[in-house]
């Protein structure tokens, strides 16, 4: 607990597990290849690099599009729309529930019940109601993420010290002014934290919806390639999705610290 690594060794320690996993993979892949030249389960890195190059830089023979980028664009658009709408709902509804007792009494239990419905269970309903297009995938993400965001934000609003709300009113703030100048900025860091935590579920819903009904997208491609046991496509795609999620998370964390420096003063390094 008291042995703290320095800056350089911290980086080295963080990289160590990745290096070990890569080594294990390379060795395992080479051994399987030696035993069976047609092995598809653990393709060598060189083969995967070739596939990635083909997917990322050469247009597809049939559709004339570079597959990786069209998949990525389609998936990120769905994810961005879904998360964006969910965040907006979480912000507005969560703020109203947390701040206004009348709204809280009316909607808090409804949101609590909604958040207990497994989103994947309503996916058939979404497909029936909204069709198999983009809309149903976006709605699935919203449905899966928004109730959590609403509840988390309502809690954050409820945790603001009552003194601050009284103080703002004693400075002449109306409920609206108090909401936008006192409550909103103070819960924004928490909202971003909640969205970061929602990235995992959001990707889960995205990939699931794409696996079931789509004609383009990262999840669609993975499940399509499964039929051909094409691990040389699936593995890089998984790595690419992971990288995207990680970068999104990192960007959100950075943005929060940049926009709300006061909220992170007490943070332990």
């Amino acid at each position, binding site marked *: 607990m008291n042995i703290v690594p320095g800056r350089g060794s911290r980086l080295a320690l963080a990289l160590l597990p990745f290096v070990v996993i890569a080594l294990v993979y390379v060795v395992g892949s080479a051994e399987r290849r030696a035993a069976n030249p047609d092995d598809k389960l653990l393709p060598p890195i060189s083969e995967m690099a070739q596939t990635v190059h083909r997917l990322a830089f050469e247009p597809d023979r049939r559709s004339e599009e570079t597959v990786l980028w069209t998949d990525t664009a389609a998936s990120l658009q769905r994810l961005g729309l879904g998360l964006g709408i969910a965040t907006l709902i979480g912000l507005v509804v969560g703020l109203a529930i947390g701040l206004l007792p009348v709204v809280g009494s009316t909607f808090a239990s409804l949101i609590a019940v909604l958040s207990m419905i497994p989103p994947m269970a309503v996916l058939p309903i979404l497909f029936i109601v909204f069709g198999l297009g983009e809309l149903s995938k976006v709605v699935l993400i919203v449905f899966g993420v928004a109730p959590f965001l609403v509840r988390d934000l309502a809690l954050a609003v409820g945790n603001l*010290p009552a*003194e*601050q709300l*009284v*103080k*703002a*009113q*004693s*400075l*002449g*703030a*109306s409920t*609206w*002014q108090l909401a*936008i*100048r*006192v409550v909103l*900025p*103070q819960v924004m860091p928490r909202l971003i934290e909640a969205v970061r935590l929602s990235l995992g579920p959001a990707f889960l819903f995205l990939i699931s919806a794409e696996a079931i009904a789509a004609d383009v997208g990262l999840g669609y491609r993975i499940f399509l390639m499964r039929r051909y046991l094409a691990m040389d496509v699936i593995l890089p795609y998984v790595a690419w999705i992971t990288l995207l999620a990680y970068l999104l998370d990192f960007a959100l964390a950075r943005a929060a610290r940049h926009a*709300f*420096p*006061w*909220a992170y*003063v*007490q943070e332990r390094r």
Partner: protein
Amino acid sequence: MSAISIRDLWLEYGNQIVLERINLQIDAGGFIALVGPSGAGKSSFLRLILGQERPTRGAILLDGEPLRSEPGPDRGVVFQRYSVFPHLTALENVLIAFEFASSPVLARLRGEARRDALAKSAALLQEVGLEAHRDKYPSALSGGMQQRLAIAQALARRPRVLLLDEPFGALDPGTRAQMHALIRKLWHEHGTTVIMVTHDIKEAFGLGTRLIALDRTRLDSQAAGRYGATITYDLDLRRDGPVPVLGFLKTPAPLDGANINQGISP
């Protein structure tokens, strides 16, 4: 500068009676120190005047008008903690009071109005000695500085009554002495009626022009909440008042009790 009159005030939470039979006339411009043991309803009393709670019975009048039962800009307040907004710098913490006043929709000022409000805010910070720390967030300020900021903020809307709920309770003795000097100076300059709840008897006698003690006078050993606290002492602490105040030589005054319960006029 404002007079408060309280008539037969009761405060009950369910079966529990917190305050009972409170009758009080507070004249404009006084500095009322409110003392009493823990649980005697000092803070509840302050919350009633603040409008955060409603009395079960009785009435509170501010300058003859019934008090609006929600917090408003006519009553400023400084709490022991959480009195400033952590997401705003010291200057913005004061500025926001002016922004609430003049920009109902966005609560933000622009151009001339903003420059004006900024100048006023800076002047207030100067008054409490925080001009060097105007761009710091509250988390970078010491406890005493945060309370100075809270006081500057509370004075921005020129409240008729300033309510202080153990404002210096969490400060070290040296800082507390500085704060006493500051609050005394501001009270003289702004002429606001001040009501301060405190645990510190010395502070109460040192700052107040009138001391009011709340306590339970009746106790039912079977039901602890059966009787509430009421005013047990009401002392006039001005130099010419009837109570001997440490550090001041007393000129002999006719003691007919007329001064007691009369409050003070500045």
